[in-house]
């Protein structure tokens, strides 16, 4: 398993670079700095003379790649760099004019040095228009940015919860020893096209930090009743569901009380004649004018509404005056991340950065065979030959710089006029549980019709989110220089493991949801009341709609907790479990 550092492996410099630095220190880099030309798009090149075209000292050529000697500033083309270093002793290190990369003539290879990269980056910083909320706001310790210390607190809070629940697990384990099936696995009755609800509930019941919270009784009925005179409390009813799921009773549970509460709290219509996969908003908007309503319920809409309902209740009970991103309610603690949006003026480079909290990420399906924007990050991918959509492709699309159309010029504060702009999304902070929502619907405003996109989406079981972090994206924008970007977060792993997949089958406005759960490395199909084991192949081949990933560290911890003792060969006559092991 790769233990890649999200920062950099310190590149080994060659002997010649080391010798150069011993003799010349940083002088060469510093005197070069004023000749570095930066562009608003993050590239850098070396431009010694504004008026003359650089030419090779030996052959006078100017069409090949040219290198500038760091010691004597003479220019050689790639064919003649060696000649230069042979004629002048010790002139081994040059810089590529086109890209500001160090080149060792003797090793015939590009080499890397943190001090040089720092020099280049400082030039970028000074060249960029001054901007408090801009790209390097974090470096300056700028205002609106979350500090990593706060997030550390959140992480440790969750860990503490799981410690408490561990004790609970141990004491309950004796009772569960008879069953060799994972704890908490229980079917949910369909109450009348409520599979949209059941599918999401199954994912929530098995989301480790969320589960731990409720199982360790952190939402206490009694306290809750005393505090609020009204009996409405969505978290209380969720607590009831958890108790039911983990009670050891394997007969399907009817989440009727919860449905009732949800309908009251979230003010949604409860009549469901089908499991819809619409942009739920679309249907609600359409039907609000029509009293004889039936509505398509969308599992993703339900997911958002439930978390919102929890937040409403818990957010109020806890201390006020915190901004949304730091909310301590369990919904936000588990699912909330932070997205970063950079809008860059293409003419001056002025970047406006904004942060928005999110509890999930909705992804557009990528197009198979579309060429990756940054070829440097990929080798030839099999997908380009086989032509399937992949989750990584969707994430690439999500973080791809998007040129805003010329009809959409934005006002640049620096230029004081409307300019063409580039927009790029990235993830500033990842949540403990990452919910990825696949937008499988298309709407044609002309035809006024929506249709579902059935195209298969490949998704991995292990997901590395590092390339989509703001630190990676911003660093890539400036040429991946060795430089302390974004207060790189080392203590949170960006590696995730999948634990639940919600799938939708059928048409846009009618169909069926079900959930696949991964518990102790065995996949279970949760189809309302029916729980069955399935092979992982079935899951991989399914048409995913919502994907639930949990941080790897939390995932492995969960699997330890839930391991049970194998059942003895002599069956206990009092326990009527059939087909066990």
């Amino acid at each position, binding site marked *: 398993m790769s233990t890649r550092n999200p920062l950099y492996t310190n590149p080994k410099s060659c002997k010649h670079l080391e010798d150069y630095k011993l003799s010349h220190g940083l002088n060469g880099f510093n005197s070069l700095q004023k000749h570095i030309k930066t562009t608003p798009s993050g590239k850098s090149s070396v431009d010694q003379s504004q008026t003359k075209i650089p030419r090779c000292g030996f052959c006078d050529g100017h069409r090949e790649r040219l290198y500038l000697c760091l010691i004597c500033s003479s220019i050689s083309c790639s064919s003649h760099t060696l000649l230069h270093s042979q004629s002048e002793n010790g002139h081994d290190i040059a810089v590529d004019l086109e890209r500001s990369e160090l080149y060792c003539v003797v090793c015939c290879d590009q080499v890397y040095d943190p001090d040089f990269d720092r020099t280049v980056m400082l030039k970028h910083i000074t060249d960029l228009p001054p901007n408090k909320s801009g790209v390097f706001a974090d470096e300056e310790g700028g205002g609106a940015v979350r500090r990593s210390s706060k997030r550390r607190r959140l992480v440790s809070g969750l860990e503490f919860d799981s410690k408490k629940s561990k004790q609970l697990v141990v004491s309950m384990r004796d009772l569960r020893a008879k069953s060799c099936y994972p704890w908490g696995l229980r079917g949910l009755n369909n*109450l009348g096209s409520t599979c949209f609800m059941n599918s999401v509930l199954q994912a929530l019941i098995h989301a480790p930090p969320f589960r731990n919270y409720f199982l360790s009784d952190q939402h206490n009925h009694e306290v809750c009743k005393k505090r609020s005179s009204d009996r409405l409390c969505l978290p209380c009813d969720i607590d009831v569901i958890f108790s039911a799921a983990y009670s050891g009773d394997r007969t399907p549970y009817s989440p009727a009380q919860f*449905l009732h509460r949800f309908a009251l709290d979230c003010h949604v219509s409860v009549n469901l004649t089908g499991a819809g996969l619409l942009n739920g908003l679309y249907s609600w908007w359409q039907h609000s004018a029509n009293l004889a309503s039936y509505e398509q319920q969308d599992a993703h809409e339900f997911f958002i509404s439930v978390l919102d309902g929890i937040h409403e209740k818990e*957010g109020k009970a806890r201390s006020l005056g915190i901004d949304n991103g730091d909310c301590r309610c369990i919904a936000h603690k588990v699912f909330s991340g932070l997205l970063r949006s950079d809008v860059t003026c293409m003419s001056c480079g002025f970047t406006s950065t904004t942060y928005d909290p999110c509890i999930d990420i*909705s992804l557009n399906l990528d197009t198979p065979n579309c060429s990756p924007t940054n070829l440097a990050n990929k080798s030839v991918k099999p997908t380009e030959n086989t032509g399937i959509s992949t989750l990584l492709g969707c994430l690439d699309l999500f973080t791809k710089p998007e040129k805003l159309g010329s009809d959409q010029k934005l006002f640049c504060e620096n230029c004081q006029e409307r300019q063409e702009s580039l927009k790029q999304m990235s993830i500033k902070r990842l949540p403990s549980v990452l919910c990825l929502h696949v937008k499988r619907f298309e709407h044609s405003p002309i035809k006024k019709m929506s249709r579902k996109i059935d195209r298969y989406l490949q998704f991995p079981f292990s997901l590395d989110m590092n390339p989509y972090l703001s630190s990676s994206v911003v660093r890539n924008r400036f040429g991946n220089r060795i430089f302390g970007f974004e207060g790189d977060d080392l203590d949170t792993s960006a590696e995730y493991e999948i634990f639940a997949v919600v799938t939708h089958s059928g048409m846009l406005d009618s169909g069926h949801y079900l959930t696949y759960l991964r518990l102790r490395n065995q996949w279970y199909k949760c189809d309302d009341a029916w729980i069955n084991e399935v092979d992982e192949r079935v899951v991989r081949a399914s048409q995913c709609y919502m994907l639930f990933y949990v941080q790897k560290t939390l995932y492995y911890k969960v699997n330890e907790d839930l391991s049970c003792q194998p059942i003895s060969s002599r069956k206990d006559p009092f326990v009527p479990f059939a087909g066990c092991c």
Partner: protein
Amino acid sequence: MSLPNDDNMSPHAQLSSHFFADLLDSVIADVASECHRIARLGLDRNLDEEEEELRLSAQARARVADSSNSGETNSKYVVDIFGQTHPAVASEIFDCMNCGRSIMAGRFAPHLEKCMGKGRKARLKVTRSSTAAQNRHSRGSPSSTYSYSNSTSMNRLSNGAPGVTGEEYSNGSFEDL
């Protein structure tokens, strides 16, 4: 690099093909340089793992396609893993918490809707979703992303072209505190 055949071309064509060749060389060297840096600094993605996942998925789909072709039905189960069987419509009976009547589980939702009042509609709520940030500045986005009424499907859905980014959004709903 192999130079184009100069003999057959006019001077203009030769010149432009030389320019093209230079540009192409430059681009190739740029890409190589970028990849080199990424590889040396250990920033490259773990392609082995990615390819393994892709391979497993492809295998899985092939197997599943095979089994459905060979007529294995995996959709109907006789018993679940606990050995239980369930009717098509959930038969558990309980009391409606709104009116007190005894209702069968599988018919509870339609009953509840009538029971709680006909045509209860979703209240318009302020939304905040992962796509709020995307909406901002995007093609055809509403001026405010924080209200249902602005975020109608007409404004926010894609024009149906594949690969178009940033335009269609499901709503998230979180009240603005």
